[in-house]
């Protein structure tokens, strides 16, 4: 039972990491930029979900608002920060991204307070349900269900719709796609839009799970998502999903067995280092050297 509980906990973490990291890998895949400020979009999603839910009385409305706001934020970040810097070396937009993250985190502190925000009414984090002998809070169940739905929808979108297929084509081969008449700029907006919406949903779900959002909520996520996309193979969505689950399960079991010597992040990064030593291209990346 104990090991099953740990597995469930790991899968829930894994879903959160996946929602966060996929947006990051999409941006990298398309533009070769490490979009560290993605963590700030995540935090914005968390804040918007809580604040709108508190004002309107509906948590669902909070999520809708987050999904509406975060793509706009992501696209704005692309337009204002990255587009002018595209012809520079990739570390230039990355540094700008780090700067934006630091700035936005302090912005959240100034706008929304140091004490953070909580849902006025969030029964989902406290009430639980028994599924096949496993106790899950409604919030955890929501994470699992929402993540599944999102990735199924994403898969259908990128394989069955014109826009989706054009998007995939542009990510794997921009010049070829352009010669087929695909508008590269529209694709970029779509890319940032969808990636950011995923982060926004992740933010809302974390707010639901913890019943608490503070300005530093993006702090750990910022470097961990980076680790995950490297582990998965930069630019590969499938790899990111596998890496998210892998890392989350390692953390879950690892913190119980060696948590007295190493903290959770240390365990995650130790795992990362070990995997990369054996397989530098990550799980599904292609070895280039």
């Amino acid at each position, binding site marked *: *039972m*104990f090991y099953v*509980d*740990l597995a*469930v*906990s*790991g899968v*829930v*973490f894994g879903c959160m990491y996946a929602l966060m990291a996929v947006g990051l890998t999409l941006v990298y895949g398309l533009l070769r930029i490490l979009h560290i400020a993605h963590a700030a979009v995540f935090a914005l999603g968390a804040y918007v979900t809580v604040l709108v839910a508190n004002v309107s009385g509906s948590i669902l409305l909070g999520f809708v608002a987050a999904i509406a706001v975060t793509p706009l934020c992501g696209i704005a970040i692309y337009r204002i920060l990255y587009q002018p810097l595209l012809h520079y070396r990739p570390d230039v937009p990355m540094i700008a991204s780090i700067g934006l993250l630091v700035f936005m985190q*302090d912005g959240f*502190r100034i706008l929304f*307070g*140091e*004490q*953070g925000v*909580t849902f006025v009414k*969030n029964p989902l*984090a*406290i*009430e*639980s349900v028994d599924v096949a002998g496993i*106790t899950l*809070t409604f919030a955890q169940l929501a994470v699992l269900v929402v993540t599944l739905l999102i990735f199924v929808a994403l898969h259908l979108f990128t394989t069955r719709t014109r826009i989706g297929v054009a998007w995939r084509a542009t990510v794997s081969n921009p010049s070829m796609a352009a010669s087929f008449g695909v508008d590269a700029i529209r694709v970029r907006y779509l890319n940032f839009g969808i990636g950011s919406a995923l982060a926004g949903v992740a933010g809302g779900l*974390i707010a639901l*799970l*913890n*019943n*608490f959002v*503070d*300005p*530093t*909520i993006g*702090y*750990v996520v910022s470097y961990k998502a980076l680790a995950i996309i490297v582990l998965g193979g930069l630019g590969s969505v499938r790899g990111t999903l596998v890496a998210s689950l892998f890392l989350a399960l390692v*953390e*879950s*079991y690892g*913190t*119980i067995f060696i*948590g*007295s010597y190493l*903290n*959770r*992040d240390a365990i995650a990064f130790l795992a990362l280092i070990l995997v990369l030593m054996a397989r530098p291209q990550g799980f599904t990346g292609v070895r280039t050297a």
Partner: protein
Amino acid sequence: MLSFARGLLGAFAFFVSQAALADVKIGFQAPLTGLAATDGKSAKAAAEIAIDDLNAGGGVLGQKLELITYDDQAKSDQAIFTANKLIGDDDVKFAISGSYSAAGRAAAPIFQNAGVVFISAYGVHPDITKAGDYCFRLVRLGPPQGRAAAFFIAESLKLKKASVISMDNDYGEATLQGFLGDVDKYGIKVVNKYNYSLQDRQFGPIVAGVKRDEPEVIYATGYFFTAGPLVAQLRAGGVKAPIVGSQAFDSGKFIDIAGAAAEGVYIVDGFDRYRKDPKLEHFTAEFQKRAGYPPEGVAAEVYSSFDILVDAMKRAGSLEPAKVRDALAATKDFPMLNETLIGFNKLHEVIMPASVDVVKDGKFVHFSTIEDKKVLAPPEQ
């Protein structure tokens, strides 16, 4: 010629007397930004209220008090930098740390070397007072807090099988050491120990572990922003054992986050906030007005730090740091917002009773007071 000289003398006397009436500066370090900003905001509001109250009461020895605040981000390097700034640029002779242990520990030796009277309002690392005789601490150290928790679990709750969850920073570690040191004395069996870090909010593995342990009681250290999620997740996971929390659980926000899960949680060395005391009531109202939320232990400790420092200045009848230091060390039965301070020991650690609170109907309610001198005894060196 004579009138000119008289005028000059008058002007000179005027400027000299103005200098003599210059404000008394008190340096203040708090984590206004960064991971500890929540407590920094409380600390700053409390400090400002203290200075305003003390000035409204006439200041000290005919002079007004001036607060000089710097953000140390709860980090050692910033604490060192701002301490040097306070000494070098602002020329303070008195300083208070409204920050975490790591920062206080870094700043203490600097103030000691400069002969500045230094009080750590709520930083619990033992090294802070070991820096020297100019350093004082107004909050109970981690180890006695931990010992008090063991005493409470054994003597009040009469439970024996415990799972322990602690935060892996200075505060959590120090408190845990105190707890573990006394468990054998009471026959408390620690089934398992877990730890987590300041930025963790998801405790799934720990909850799974505690469920497997089936303890009679859970002892946990942490701040409200980790305690809230932890307690909510423990209860949601089906863990029913009573939870005994450490001092830093004590914040209204903890109850906001954990909701119904916070009911029945005990807090050892909590802030007995609803006592009938005019000073406490005034402080609570003023803090709520300025900060927008009710004050917690951190705020009370910071306020009392300024209060006791200025009281020592008045008792010393002087603003010379050495004399104020001696008056402070000789303090007896001083009414702090939290408890009555019986006195300081040789190491300038507090001797005072500990209040245990419990969360009842969404509020902190006083449960009992621990007065056992041996349990609460601070270290002598």
